[in-house]
């Protein structure tokens, strides 16, 4: 009946938080991994997010902005900053993630540019400022209202700078031909580059982001309060009949037993009392 529910993207949020201490003792992050079809067979053991809460990102890294000008993070990270590692030609998840940002940014009560900035940074060293520019145009159109252009910058860079950044935040990705296997998350740093919070998944609650930015402005380190497990999976219940058979059998046994019990009670009636 529900045959071939292919490629159901199921995002389940577990409103569960982890303190920094607990993260350290936990095994490496569960698969917040976006499987591209062609990458399905390759090992993804190195891919993942090892949270580095409280660590600093190097601010001397230089990238190229969407106008082709060279900028250093020093110049851009002047206050609380949201950083989204993406690649602009990603066939889906990065788009969801950036669209998620474009949806939530206008809902924040904080003033862009003054109280926070956003940086999308491509981890594909072959991407160009032109791609960044067109991406910027897309998502500014998606915001759909006045938003200061300097508040959300779209950067590209060389492999050296990219890796120094992604390694410092524990964001591990892997190239698969044209595409990448990569975690789906953004993070927030304070003005001095301290990582204060990670936000998993592709859609963000205004509250989560505001909290992270407020923490960043106060220099407080937060915890990852809303972990997302993101799967991209194919699911065919007809092939998984044993589970359903198990349930069907158990349910039938329960109901038949209960019905037999009721019938027995009704048929035998009240107990004859002794004495």
């Amino acid at each position, binding site marked *: 009946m529900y045959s071939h529910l292919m490629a159901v993207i*199921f995002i389940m949020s*577990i*409103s569960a*938080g982890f303190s920094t201490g607990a993260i350290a003792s*936990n095994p490496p992050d569960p698969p917040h991994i976006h499987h591209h079809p062609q990458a399905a067979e390759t090992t993804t053991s190195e891919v993942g997010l090892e949270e580095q809460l409280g660590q600093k990102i190097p601010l001397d890294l230089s990238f190229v902005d969407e106008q082709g000008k060279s900028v250093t993070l020093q110049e851009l990270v002047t206050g609380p900053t949201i950083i989204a590692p993406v690649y602009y030609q990603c066939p889906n998840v990065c788009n969801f993630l950036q669209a998620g940002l474009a949806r939530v940014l206008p809902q924040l009560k904080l003033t862009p540019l003054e109280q926070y900035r956003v940086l999308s940074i491509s981890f594909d060293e072959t991407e160009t400022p032109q791609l960044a520019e067109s991406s910027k145009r897309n998502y500014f159109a998606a915001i759909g209202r006045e938003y200061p252009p300097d508040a959300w910058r779209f950067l590209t860079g060389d492999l050296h700078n990219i890796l120094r950044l992604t390694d410092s935040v524990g964001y591990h990705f892997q190239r698969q031909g044209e595409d990448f296997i990569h975690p789906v998350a953004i993070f927030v740093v304070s003005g001095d580059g301290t990582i204060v919070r990670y936000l998993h998944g592709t859609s963000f609650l205004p509250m989560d982001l505001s909290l992270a930015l407020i923490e960043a402005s106060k220099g407080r380190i937060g915890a990852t309060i809303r972990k997302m*497990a993101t799967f991209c999976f194919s699911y065919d219940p007809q*092939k998984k009949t044993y589970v359903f058979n198990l349930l069907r059998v*158990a349910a039938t046994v329960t109901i038949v037993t209960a019905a037999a019990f009721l019938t027995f009670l009704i048929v035998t009636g009240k*107990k004859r*009392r002794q004495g």
Partner: protein
Amino acid sequence: MTQETTDPGSRGFLADGGKYPGLLGWIFSTDHKRIGLLYLYAVLSFFLVGVALGLIIRLELIAPGETIMSAQAYNALFTVHGVIMIFLFIIPGIPAIFGNIFLPIHIGANDVSFPRLNLFSWWLYMIAALIILASLFTGGGPPDTGWTFYVPFSAETTTNVPMAVFGVFILGFSSILTGINFVTTVHRLRAPGVNWGRLPLFIWSLYATAWVQILATPMLAITLVLLLAERLLGAGLFDPASGGDPIMFQHLFWIYSHPAVYIMILPGMGIVTEIIPVFARKPVFGYWAIAFSSIGIAAAGSLVWGHHMFVSGMSDMAVLVFSLLTFIVAIPSAIKVFNWVATLYKGSISLDPPMLFALSFIFLFCIGGLTGLILGSAATDVHVHDTAFVVGHFHYVMFGGTGFAFFGGLHYWLPKICGRMYNKRIATIAWGIMFAGFNILYFSMMILGLRGMPRRYYDYLPEYTDLNLVSTVGSWILAAGLLLMFVNLLRGARSGPPAGANPWGGLTLEWTLSSPPQAENFVNIPVVEHGPYDYDKVSPP
């Protein structure tokens, strides 16, 4: 019909322990009244632990940011608060305590059908409770999944989920066995004259509850077994990487856990239905409507589990059907409320403590029930899902509903159980404090939720500070009221003045016995000649 065979000063079943002396006479007693009291002591102890955890949770939320604990500690705390309150207090609470003590007496029997099975249920309950408590201090630390144990997190977290789940699994059997026992007892041990139309409505509610326990609890057991298989054997039932379906867990879990909500509330409604006619001195309005609304709630309530999952990913048709069924449950619930109010109409109402609790039950349950409809309609649910609104709603139904009914039951029946009366003035003051504290605590939560404050967060945005502070202060007021109430009840039970056989003027069979009843309830099985609420035909013994 009055059977005061023992002298008024006797301590009845409290002193007469049968085969064994002392403590053994209690923990190996098959007397349903003693078993009921064993449950009472255990359940109340766990309740107090749960209250303490709840107070700490509220204290953490008194101000934004990390106030007294880390996020991980907070997660563990609200999980353990939930597990203890749901599985150890509110599900077994009323049936296992008042059901055990009064079900046989109400139908004129000397015990339940299977007294030894009854004792075994208590032992299972205690073993399960100890396993759950042990899970807090062993393994990878207390579980942090929330009481719903949702996969995939519960299959991955390093905390001590398997042990807690195993404890809940055993608890399920205690619940099923009690259900079987009660159903059999109602069918087979009714005294002559106690036909189905003369069953006290408390018994009807217990009967409906027992069927839900029998039918739904096995689902919980199966679900938990599957979860253990997932965790320990890597079965992949809920893991999409191995072809499983994480949503299936939510379905299975709620197929039990939503009916469980009716396991929690129905006996509470039963107590309220006992109290109101007694203190209004009127026959209950709409006996059969109330009796069948219990069955109706149990039946319809078993088909609404999907309303917990409107945002989990379901077809629009499924959402529509579950939403409709949820609204249908409101009908038998409203029938009860209207019948209670109609019973009060032109009654001779005395506002003794049990009645105050029953009346506040109606008020709080209405708020809880109507906010439930906001959650049950798909469109509004999307906005308030996973916010403090849900927490507020849930506590209005479970604490304001079942909790207040439970306290009403305590005030109603404690004089019968102990033979002594508590101080009614202090009980009334304690009720007032609790009622005020309760509303301050949980109404603030609902407003917070409407404004977007999520549940299960140890932190929040600065704009939520004021109401969170109000809510936390409410928790202190409520706790003060609880403390006063328990101290008063305890003092009353130990050294209050003798209560007499029938302090409230009730017509059900327990009031024909001495207080406390003797070990063998009825020396001669009574022949019942009138209904339990026939105030227009007979006057109370």
